[in-house]
């Protein structure tokens, strides 16, 4: 463009008005904000929430204490000890300690579990006020929802 054209564009503040037009148009646009906590966006199906242990359809625990997850984990979250009862079909975990503060949510334990016992849940509210809320024993590994929040907050008055 000629020098005169450039000068006129600059004098009449064309670039300024163009910028103002963009912000004005976006002022009237629909906002994508989701107002939490009134609206909670459901995460995607594969979302990596808190790893939880699961039971099968009959209510029997799926974990057989094979310790594959403990070997696969890169950050030493697990401490598992199994025990097989006399005449029982499967080994069951007697001790299954899992530390949330070490978990990097990489998913190796989920991928390697042969019985699909440990899986990612959709729990993403993982805050607590005490560190012992971050240690999960065997029965705590089945907690979800409000029970999970009570465990994480570990005795907080508000959780009662």
């Amino acid at each position, binding site marked *: 463009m000629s020098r005169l054209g450039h000068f006129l564009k600059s004098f009449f*503040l064309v670039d*300024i008005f163009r*910028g*103002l037009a*963009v*912000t*004005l148009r*976006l*002022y009237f*646009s629909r*906002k*994508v*904000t989701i*107002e939490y906590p009134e609206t909670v966006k459901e995460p995607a199906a594969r979302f990596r929430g808190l790893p939880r242990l699961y039971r099968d359809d009959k209510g029997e625990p799926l974990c057989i204490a094979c310790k594959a997850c403990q070997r696969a984990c890169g950050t030493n979250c697990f401490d598992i000890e199994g025990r097989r009862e006399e005449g029982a079909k499967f080994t069951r975990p007697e001790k299954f300690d899992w530390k949330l503060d070490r978990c990097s949510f990489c998913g190796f334990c989920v991928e390697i579990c042969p019985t699909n016992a440990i899986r990612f849940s959709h729990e993403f509210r993982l805050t607590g006020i005490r560190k012992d809320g971050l240690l999960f024993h065997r029965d705590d590994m089945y907690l979800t929802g409000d029970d999970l929040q009570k465990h994480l907050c570990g005795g907080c008055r508000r959780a009662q």
Partner: protein
Amino acid sequence: MTPFVADLLIPVGKIVAVILYPMVMVMVMIWLERRVVALMQGRLGPNRVGFQGVLQPVADALKLFFKEDIIPRQADKLLFNISPILVMFSSLLAFCFVPLGEPIRIGTYTLTLWIAESQVGLLIVLGLSSISVFGVIFGGWASNSKYPLMGALRSVVQVLSYEIPLGLTVLTVAFVARSMDLVEIVRRQEASGVWYGFLMPISFVVFWISAVAETNRAPFDLPEAESELVAGYHTEYSGMKFAYFYMAEYAHMVLVSSLVVILFFGGWLPPFPSVKALDFLDAVPGFAWYLIKIMFFLYLYVWIRATFPRYRFDSLIRLVWKWLIPLALANFLAVVLVRHLR
């Protein structure tokens, strides 16, 4: 109308109104800024405290009220304490001379919608609003820290430089209106039928740019921007003193918007007076028109802030000395020439 009411109650009432009016507008501005900037950015902004967030400024003020008042150890205590007051004082005092509408007749008494009218009202308002420079430089000096001092110096240089085109453009208005009395200027615009903003658009644009720079607002807010290296003259202030600086900046913005409206956009006059079909607009009181116009300019302040990056300090100074001042001078000469040739 007893002398008690006419000589004591009404003036005191007007003084209270003059203090309350900018403070209320400051509250509105805080809310407006946060909501409008947020909406322009594609998010919602504060909308929980009160209906649509209108109580958010109250929450902010309460928070600042309860904060600890920290004074640096080696700070000059007198100057440190005085500077927020000076900045606020200059803006508020100038409001005494800003007229809000034609006088209202109540019975036999004429209520004037200003505290004082002066034949050099324009000059007085500009002069009073310049006192804020002292507050800035005292604040920067008294903080006893090199970053606030540098920020204060830059702010002062900016304000002083931009007062020149401000004065030159205001001179064109005074020249055309043949008066420096703010009330007269509005009445002349009424008489001539065209507002000075449309008669002299260059004056308006230069005045507006200078006004944005005077109030240290984006895109001229380098002296007080957080992401820059130098943090600004109000770094060391906390609590209510910081709130004062914050509110004083908004009050200054309201003052400058009032000035723009009075000088260039007809003050309290309704638009399109010559179009008979729109005569119903006269039913709206002048004060309401004045408020609508001010709100537009305050919105423009916020709109500009949400859109543009910041000028670097030397670009800022180069802009005013190389472009705005010669342009304002040329504009003034052109206006004089055109008037003379009429």
